[in-house]
């Protein structure tokens, strides 16, 4: 069977006013809103102690870092000094049309903190990309036998 399956997720967007933007953790596009229950990413947070969650539900405190989205604590996948990955809480009220919510990334003690924002709407699909630096944006797709078809060395030649 010619069958692919992959992981899809929410998204994100940008504008002024806040210095930092929350982006979709798969597509890394700043031109779209993110959605509740979607995996997102935030940039540099030098105070983070690198850590990766290994339990479910995801912890709301990881590597000494906590994230509040519109005041709601977010489950955190991983933290490093260059990226914090977390899930937009379902409790954030998403609207049909995107609305901006403040996002606070802070240490457990509450300081220092960084305030960013996330533009959130109820639906915002995105395809997880294996390599955001690749201009062709290869999808995180698998064959039906769970094998992965790597990008051919010669563009436009199937492998």
């Amino acid at each position, binding site marked *: 069977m010619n069958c692919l399956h992959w992981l899809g997720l929410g998204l994100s967007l940008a504008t002024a006013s806040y210095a930092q933007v929350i982006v979709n953790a798969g597509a890394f596009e700043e031109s779209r809103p993110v959605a*509740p229950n979607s995996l997102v990413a935030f940039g540099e947070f030098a105070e983070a102690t690198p850590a990766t969650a290994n339990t479910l539900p995801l912890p709301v405190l990881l590597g000494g870092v906590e994230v509040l989205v519109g005041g709601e604590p977010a489950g955190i996948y991983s933290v490093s000094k260059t990226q914090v990955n977390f899930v937009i809480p379902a409790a954030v009220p998403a609207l049909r049309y995107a609305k901006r919510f403040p996002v606070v990334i802070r240490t457990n003690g509450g300081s220092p903190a960084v305030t960013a924002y996330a533009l959130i709407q109820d639906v915002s699909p*995105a395809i997880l990309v294996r390599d955001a630096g690749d201009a062709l944006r290869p999808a995180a797709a698998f064959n039906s036998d769970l094998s992965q078809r790597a990008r051919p060395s010669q563009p436009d030649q199937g492998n």
Partner: protein
Amino acid sequence: MNGGAVPEIPKPPTVYFHSWPGETILSSPAPGQPGLWLVKVRVPQMTNHSSGATPITVLFDGVNSNTATVWVQ
């Protein structure tokens, strides 16, 4: 789950290969991975395009996704 409750899905997403829609076989939360969804889709027959780099997009509840690439043979 801190990632939140599973949202209701109005109807399955449609995955497009170029402009050809694939048959969505499964759309569900990815097991053990909050914030991610798993979509299974059958690759459609694509007239005049049978192999090579193929752009894909997802249309879900009237909203388009980003464009990514899969390689088809």
